[in-house]
């Protein structure tokens, strides 16, 4: 009872079309992602507490610095879901990594607004390290990062703040928590 996410290993007959489709897509230039794919299960689902433990462990040994004035929120400060929720393994890791990304995006925007090109360039240098995070390396892919880089980072390099502003819409709450420390 209550089976959890795991790699799909059984292929009933009605999956034949789907499988053929996946194979066809994979042969068309890397469209099929294999592994974790864009959504689906590999391994156990975590409850909220276990997800927070994962987050705390990642934060504890985070490989890159945050901008000055930011700190990772304590796990208990993160919002609790309104409905019973299970998390695919990695959710806590991705939360830590994307909080780090949000902090540097916000740092870039503030530095740009203040006309501090040195601080803005430093923010971009850290954001270029995103492919080294677990978020990109294990829970997204380089293709997505390249698209993000072209749509947001490249525009920032050219002095256009709008894509960063747009991106920060989904970061607003976490940035507030990070600035509170």
């Amino acid at each position: 009872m209550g089976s959890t996410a795991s790699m799909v290993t059984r292929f009933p007959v009605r999956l034949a079309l789907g499988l053929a489709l996946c194979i066809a897509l994979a042969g068309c230039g890397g469209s099929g992602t294999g592994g974790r794919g864009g959504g689906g299960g590999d391994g156990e689902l975590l409850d909220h507490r276990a997800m927070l433990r994962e987050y705390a462990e990642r934060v504890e040994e985070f490989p890159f610095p945050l901008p000055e004035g930011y700190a990772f929120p304590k796990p208990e400060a993160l919002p609790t879901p309104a409905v019973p929720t299970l998390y695919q393994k990695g959710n806590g890791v991705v939360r830590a990594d994307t909080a780090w990304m949000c902090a540097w995006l916000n740092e870039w925007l503030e530095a740009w607004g203040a006309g501090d090109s040195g601080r803005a360039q430093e923010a971009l240098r850290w954001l270029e390290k995103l492919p080294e995070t677990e978020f990109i390396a294990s829970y997204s892919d380089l293709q997505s990062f390249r698209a993000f880089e072209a749509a947001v980072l490249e525009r920032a390099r050219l002095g256009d703040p709008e894509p960063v502003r747009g991106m920060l819409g989904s970061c607003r709450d976490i940035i507030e928590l990070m600035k509170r420390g």
Partner: protein
Amino acid sequence: MPCVGLGVFLRRIVLPPEKLSSVWGEPHTGGYLGKYSTYRWHNTEQAARLVYDNVGTYSRLGLREIFGSQIMRSNQYKGSGGYAPFATLLGLLTIPAGWYALNGRMGAWFSRDNVWQGILVL
């Protein structure tokens, strides 16, 4: 390399290969909401979802942003699944640029097929 002739389900949508991800999941059979961990970047265009194998009951799948709550309406898939575009809560089919992951759940059913699989067009 362009993809052509991929089957009836995909005939009517544009298929740039870089926008396609094969996705699958085994939601909790008790009907709990599941938050998947894998993210993809989406530029501002229409996002769509195709489920071509469905769970034994029904599945509901939606997109969420990083740290955001789900800002898209969930799509519900019954029977063998099907193609459905994602829409914002206001009903718009243009999905803002951003990083997106899937939320999913199935209708509770304690003994049968809980596997869904499909292609995410994002």
